[in-house]
């Protein structure tokens, strides 16, 4: 890494420089006088909360948005980026979080999509040529796979490799990566980091957007922090601490320890799960949750945590066992569970938690219709008043209750999902990965909210892959392994080591 720094110091001309870039949308300055330089062969980390302007900057870079003001310099010469074609000519390629591959074509076809080598017969494709060319590209990034494999057979990490190969085949000199490790396992992340090192060595520059502190320090040569569309600072990893970076991102001190007011004595028993099994692969689950408690449910991805949540909520049928809620046995569909006072905040907010095209208000009242309108007659204005209340209470950032919910940021969408259960007056909140894809500021807000809920006599069962969060927030936790409860950890035993130890196979 010191070599890379040395190169940067001795080559004062940036590969690409943005000066005073501004981009305005009606009502909001998405980018406000942002300057930004990328040097050859560096990994430039781009940090900021959701809505800070990272995506806009990325879209300006790749020509998807046209900047209202500002200039671009490529190796010192003034250039224009007015279209994606311009960006491509300058060697800029973006690896978005959602890949743009065609699932039923093979790797080679995807890499050369729209640029296929022509066969001898007009209108045909030189199949052997395309496979050989793809193989060469894959070799340069060290990805050992048969290029005739169809993309739908690939995992997320492999698809990402294909995207990178595609960019490299277009002679990309600047790779913009948007949270590339968000969906990768630890092992896959290591492979990606190795590839990044290799690309760097070849002089490719990487603009890397990340929410993970560890990556910023492991990979970054330089860090640019954005907040509210403005560039806050550009620093080197050696010169800052994670806390300083967080302060720059948030603009205020954020307590990363998620303060929690632990109750002295747990309240009465609210949920009792006895020997629960279901065809989704969980068996003999025994769980107790008391009022005033946040109980963690941990384990590896795929250990059956979400399945337990769904079974308790009635979303999947159970094959054995009993669920006793608030003293009464319960079995039925989610509408029964919801009526009795159970709330599920599902893992995938967008597909399972919200009707994205409907308004904030529509989404906030959907679970509380019967409670708000006992006569059965719906009143749009009353619904909006109730929503306005929740919007203030949860500090949901939205222009109005009538805004389409899909246009809010991830953290605010999550607040809407929680808000609909607040409106319903739920007693037990089951959170499935409540902070996934949510920036740091919103995260601590959500934990403060959960803390307040349980302090007021509700209870929470929280699934999270972030063991730090579980350890900070939970009163105690169950650890799952292969569809069963592998162990229970009290507040004193609740450490990351213990969670991992219980959750690992053959522990």
């Amino acid at each position: 890494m010191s070599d890379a720094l040395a190169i940067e110091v001795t080559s004062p001309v940036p590969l690409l420089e943005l000066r005073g870039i501004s981009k305005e949308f009606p009502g909001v300055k998405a980018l406000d006088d942002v300057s930004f330089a990328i040097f050859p062969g560096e990994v430039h980390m781009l940090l900021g909360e959701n809505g800070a302007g990272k995506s806009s900057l990325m879209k300006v870079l790749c020509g998807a948005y046209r900047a209202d003001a500002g200039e671009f310099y490529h190796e010192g010469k003034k250039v224009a980026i007015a279209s994606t074609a311009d960006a491509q000519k300058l060697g800029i390629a973006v690896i978005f979080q959602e890949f743009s591959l065609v699932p039923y074509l093979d790797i080679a076809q995807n890499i050369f999509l729209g640029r296929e080598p022509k066969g001898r017969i007009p209108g045909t494709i030189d199949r052997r040529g395309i496979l050989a060319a793809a193989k060469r590209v894959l070799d340069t990034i060290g990805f050992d796979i048969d290029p005739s494999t169809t993309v739908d057979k690939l995992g997320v990490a492999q698809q990402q490799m294909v995207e990178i190969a595609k960019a490299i085949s277009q002679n990309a000199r600047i790779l913009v990566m948007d949270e590339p490790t968000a969906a990768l396992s630890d092992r896959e992340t290591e492979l990606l980091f190795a590839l990044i090192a290799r690309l760097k060595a070849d002089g490719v520059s990487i603009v890397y957007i990340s929410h993970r502190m560890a990556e910023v320090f492991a990979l970054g040569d330089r860090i640019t922090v954005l907040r509210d569309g403005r560039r806050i600072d550009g620093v080197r990893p050696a010169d800052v601490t994670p806390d300083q970076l967080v302060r720059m991102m948030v603009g205020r001190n954020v307590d990363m320890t998620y303060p929690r007011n632990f109750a002295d004595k747990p309240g009465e028993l609210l949920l009792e799960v006895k020997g629960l099994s279901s065809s989704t692969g969980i068996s003999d689950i025994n769980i107790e949750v008391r009022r005033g408690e946040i109980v963690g449910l941990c384990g590896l991805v795929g250990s059956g945590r979400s399945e337990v949540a769904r079974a308790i909520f009635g979303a999947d049928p159970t094959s054995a066992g009993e669920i006793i809620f608030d003293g009464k046995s319960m079995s039925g569909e989610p509408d029964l569970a919801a009526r009795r006072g159970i709330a599920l905040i599902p893992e995938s907010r967008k597909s399972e938690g919200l009707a994205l095209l409907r308004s904030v208000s529509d989404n906030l009242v959907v679970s509380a219709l019967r409670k708000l309108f006992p006569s059965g007659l719906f009143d749009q204005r009353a619904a909006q008043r109730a929503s306005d209340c929740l919007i203030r209470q949860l500090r949901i950032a939205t222009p109005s209750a009538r805004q389409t919910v899909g246009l809010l940021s991830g953290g605010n969408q999550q607040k809407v999902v929680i808000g609909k259960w607040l409106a319903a007056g739920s007693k037990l909140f089951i959170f499935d990965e409540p902070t996934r894809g949510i920036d740091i500021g919103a995260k601590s807000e959500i934990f403060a909210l959960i803390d307040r809920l349980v302090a007021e006599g509700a209870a929470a069962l929280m699934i999270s892959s972030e063991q730090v969060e579980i350890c900070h927030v939970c009163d105690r936790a169950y650890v799952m392994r292969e569809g069963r409860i592998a162990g229970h950890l009290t507040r004193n035993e609740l450490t990351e080591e213990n969670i991992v130890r219980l959750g690992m196979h053959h522990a």
Partner: protein
Amino acid sequence: MTDITKEAMMPPRSFLSQDAIQVFYRLLAAFLICAVLAVLSDSFLSLGNILNVLRQASLTFFIASGLTLVVLTAGLDLSVGANVALSACIAGTVIHKTGSPALGILAGLACGGLVGLLNGVMVTALRIPSFIATYGMLWVLNGLTYWYMAGETLHGFPAGFRQIGSGYLFGLPIPVYLLLVFLGIGTLFAQRTIWGQEIYAIGANPVAARLSGIPVARRLLLVYAVSGTMAGLASIIFLSRLNSAEADIGESLTLPAIAAVLIGGTSLFGGVGTVFGTFIGALILTLVLNGMNLLSVSANWQPLVTGIIVILAVWLDMKTRRRTS
């Protein structure tokens, strides 16, 4: 990762909702069509013709209003026309056998509702996609009706009964009163009851709706039963107006009803649309066909024109909505 830019590009919703704006566009279109027809044809603005248009539109609307609820849940009911035929034949038989129009009306509504309920059971309990379930039901109903009628025609009903379809009250055809009543009930049900809200929520995202505690299966049963019952109601009005029932009266009904729903701005993907929009859709469709008759355009052109209007309406709908969301 969401970005501020997307949030910014969408201005806060104006005081008029999207639905209100879409209905406004459609009313405008209906008025334009009226204006053009008034200029081109002397007889268009005559009272007789206007009442005729309203009566025609009401028949399409009865079927299309129930169908609108189904489409709002992202479903489809292809069996409505066949349902009208069977319900009309059964209602007609009951009236002939018992001499009681009231019993006949009850039988027609019950038959329609029961068929709808069966559709609902196929969609919810058996999880058959509604398109396929109701398409199958269409054949089953046709088969039953042809077998039951065996080529016969039921003809001649009591004068009182015939008033429903062809009578007047204070100068307006009775079906027009029924139209206003059911337009009101349908709009109130969809917009001002919690069941209506739940139906919109189911159409917008059925998974999220279920996980929000909405009894999705029960609401779908209700929606299909309502669609069937409205087909039953339409069957009574047909029977009364035509004063006869044959096995094949339903064949030309389903597609115009779907056209009215689509022209009215209800999305086949669910969650978007209004019953009032469907009323205007039925009106636009009827106006155009009426205008073609008045201008002596061959009836052979009617399907082509209907098709173009549907495509145009949906395209314009997508275009105007995309701009704001």
